């Protein structure tokens, strides 16, 4: 909770110190004066300013404050130049008391600096009082440790949610936004419900603020949804990485793999059994078996040449045939490779031309703008002589031939560039593919040639020497078996990763299914119902007359603002009823939050709620409902007690139930000494 205990404003001039020093209490606090322009709003503005919420008034820094803080202060006939000014604000969170000081005008003190004293205002100058300097309105002031609003967030025991911002990032909901729902400022605060809300780049900020104040689960659900989306991204990314790694290795061993699921899914045993690695159209296991058999056969062979002369000859001629086939294939592929290279080079040339074309066209577009700056007719597609319409071209064209304007032309060229880039990319990937298969073939060719060489040397050996070919073959089979086994090992390792990812995916799908369909939990529905009841009740009390049947008023499910038959309530309201609606809605937010343990800090500030000649009896009801229902919260109201009716209302308020601060002729009176 937030309770404002005491505000002390000090304005120093050459001879005197002017100021304001009053205490505030729970329940209703009235800052009243006989006439307008006495400085009530300056006092209230200073509360916002000390808390760093001056954006609700409409601006940053001391410029939102009145002249009394910045340039001169008037006293009867005298005008005193202001030398220094600033204010102390003592606030209470239910457990601790702190005092905040922020300067409005002090030489060499940045107005973004806020000093926090960990004591009440009386004791700020004691030796053992802790002092901390913090700042507002600087980048990251809402999240950094030395950011005042970050401190205030902790101090008020609230935890601001992360919400989507308009630039697609996720940001913390700003305190300023939340307090614009409780501090109704004099000027634009009364334009509409939550109209004082500063624009800070949060998507649907009004909705988010109400969600936060009522502590609706929707926010939580949204956040969960975000988390799930991140999880989904993560799983998908790891999944494709694993798949890519496996495919890469499989291709390196010139194998093929089928049945590998390209995107995450829950894998069953059937799915696993469908994943098959093949080599030369055989299952890899069988292929290895075959190889092992070959290997053993080779072992069984007598390694003497004399015994295998015929076989050696047949094998040599076959090997040479395969070599020729491979060589022919490589030549063909190299041709293709050259062609791809040529296409890529051509595309690159075209791209270059288009790039210069685009930049020249952009020049032309800017020149056209420059031309219209100095009033050239041709820049407006008009003939300078006869002022008829002409086309923006120097080429002779048939009359009815439409031409593109420069902007379309640039778009057109950009599209062409994208197309060329895409073509270049696909040619590039073709190139890679061809290069890969050439590499493969060259590797096999190398093996075959070594084999042929061994065979040939065997043929020319004396009859009883050992067969080199058989030894070579044995070695190469051995290494192939080893490689393939390694591939199988690799795959089974990654199968575990798949299993894990599949588990996570299942988990993700379960959580996704568990999210409520229409995002309102049962608790939310109750809270929204309470908000609606409080609102209707308040509207009745305050004399809202623009609609006969107030039960038609409902809380919109879209943005949680009051609506009638789906339309914004404001459309149907008279000016004074709009004021009543703002009273009612602001109060009901607090009431609902109290009833359903929401996040409302429990403070409301209204500056001049009696706008648009509101009827006095309605205002009385407004005050009464504050005095009766909200005695544990704090409501500060700045009010002008000009006419006798208003005075009567104030006087009739129950004694001792409210705190009246009468502002004399001028709000800032001479005070003895500064704190």
């Amino acid at each position, binding site marked *: 909770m937030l309770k404002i205990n005491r505000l002390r404003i000090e304005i120093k001039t050459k001879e005197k110190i002017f100021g304001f020093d009053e205490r505030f209490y729970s329940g209703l606090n009235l800052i009243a004066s006989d006439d307008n322009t006495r400085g009530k709003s300056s006092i209230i503005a200073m509360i916002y300013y000390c808390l760093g919420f001056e954006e609700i008034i409409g601006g940053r820094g001391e410029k939102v404050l009145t002249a009394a803080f910045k340039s001169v202060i008037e006293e009867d006939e005298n005008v005193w130049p202001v030398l220094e000014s600033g204010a102390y604000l003592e606030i209470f969170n239910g457990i601790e008391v702190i005092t905040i000081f922020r300067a409005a005008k002090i030489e060499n003190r940045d107005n973004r600096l806020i000093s926090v004293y960990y004591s009440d205002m009386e004791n700020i100058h004691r030796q053992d009082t802790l002092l901390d300097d913090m700042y507002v309105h600087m980048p990251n002031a809402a999240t950094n440790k030395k950011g005042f609003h970050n401190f205030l967030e902790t101090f008020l025991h609230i935890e601001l949610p992360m919400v989507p911002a308009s630039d697609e990032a996720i940001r913390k909901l700003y305190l300023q936004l939340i307090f614009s729902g409780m501090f109704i400022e004099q000027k634009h605060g009364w334009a509409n419900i939550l109209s004082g809300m500063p624009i800070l780049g949060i998507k649907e900020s009004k909705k988010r603020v109400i969600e936060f104040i009522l502590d609706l689960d929707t926010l939580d659900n949204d956040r969960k949804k975000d988390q799930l989306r991140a999880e989904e991204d993560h799983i998908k990314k790891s999944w494709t990485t694993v798949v890519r790694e496996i495919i890469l290795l499989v291709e390196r061993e010139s194998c093929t793999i089928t049945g590998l699921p390209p995107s995450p899914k829950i894998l069953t045993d059937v799915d696993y059994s469908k994943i098959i690695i093949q080599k030369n159209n055989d299952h890899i296991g069988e292929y290895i078996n075959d190889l092992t058999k070959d290997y053993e056969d080779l072992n069984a062979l007598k390694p003497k040449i004399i015994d295998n002369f015929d076989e050696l000859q047949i094998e040599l001629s076959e090997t040479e045939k395969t070599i020729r086939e491979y060589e022919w294939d490589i030549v063909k592929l190299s041709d293709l490779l050259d062609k791809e290279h040529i296409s890529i080079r051509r595309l690159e040339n075209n791209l270059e031309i288009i790039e210069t074309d685009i930049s020249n*066209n952009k020049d032309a577009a800017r020149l056209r703008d420059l031309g219209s700056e100095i009033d050239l007719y*041709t820049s407006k597609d008009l003939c*300078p002589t006869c002022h008829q319409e002409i086309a923006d071209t*120097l*080429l002779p064209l048939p009359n009815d031939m439409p031409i593109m304007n420069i902007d379309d032309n640039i778009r057109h060229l950009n599209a062409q560039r994208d197309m060329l880039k895409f073509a270049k990319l696909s040619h590039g990937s073709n190139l890679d593919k061809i290069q890969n298969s050439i590499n493969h073939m060259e590797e096999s060719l190398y093996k075959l040639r070594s084999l042929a060489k061994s065979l040939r040397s065997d043929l020319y050996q004396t009859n009883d020497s050992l067969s080199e070919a058989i030894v070579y073959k044995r070695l190469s089979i051995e290494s192939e078996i080893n490689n393939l086994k390694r591939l199988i090992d690799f795959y089974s390792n990654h199968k575990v990763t798949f299993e894990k990812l599949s588990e996570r995916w299942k988990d993700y799908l379960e959580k996704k299914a568990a999210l409520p369909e229409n995002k309102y939990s049962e608790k939310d529905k109750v809270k929204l119902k309470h908000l609606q009841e409080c609102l209707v009740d308040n509207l009745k009390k305050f004399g809202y007359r623009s609609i006969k049947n107030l039960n038609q008023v409902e809380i919109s499910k879209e943005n949680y603002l009051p609506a009638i038959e789906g339309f914004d309530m404001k459309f149907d309201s008279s000016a004074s009823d709009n004021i009543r609606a703002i009273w009612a809605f602001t109060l009901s937010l607090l009431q609902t939050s109290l009833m359903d343990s929401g996040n409302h800090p429990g403070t409301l500030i209204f500056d001049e709620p009696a706008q648009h000649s509101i009827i006095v009896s309605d205002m009385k009801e407004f005050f009464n409902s504050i005095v009766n229902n909200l005695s544990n919260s704090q409501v500060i109201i700045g009010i002008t007690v000009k006419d006798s009716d208003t005075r009567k209302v104030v006087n009739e308020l129950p004694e001792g139930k409210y705190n009246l601060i009468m502002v004399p002729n001028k709000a800032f009176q001479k005070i003895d000494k500064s704190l």
Partner: protein
Amino acid sequence: MDKSYVLSEEIIFDAKPDAVPFNYRISYKLAKLSLILELNARGGCSLMKLQMVSTALSTTSDRGKLWDFVNNSSNNYSVVRFDPAVNRAIKYAIAEGLFNQQKNGLFRLTKKGKEFTKVIMKDSSLLSSEKKYLFLLSNKLTEERIKELTTFWRYTNVEDK
């Protein structure tokens, strides 16, 4: 008899707007010609010169050709391309009040034209390579040189016949 047509509605062919190369945009040409007058001609510029420099600006090889011509005394600048688009652009420039034609036939920038070039010169990213070339070319291509060239053509053409 049942006839089933695949297409029963009429088909309409619409002419899509044609792209125009930047070189044929009025604004672009006007700016280029104004820059030539500003940077390369003191006391007026002939149509021939405008054509020559304007052609030279269009491609890198054309730039080189003119550069060689002005830096060597040889007359091997075979052909001057007379681009009708340049003529048309000059007409527009005169109508817009950017150029004046003097009594001796030479073109000159008006006050408005000077203003226009000033705005263009201010933006250094605009037509930067063109500006650089024209700056280097400066006053190297004189009207005398052009006259020499045309006379040279006259004689060689006579010999040809």
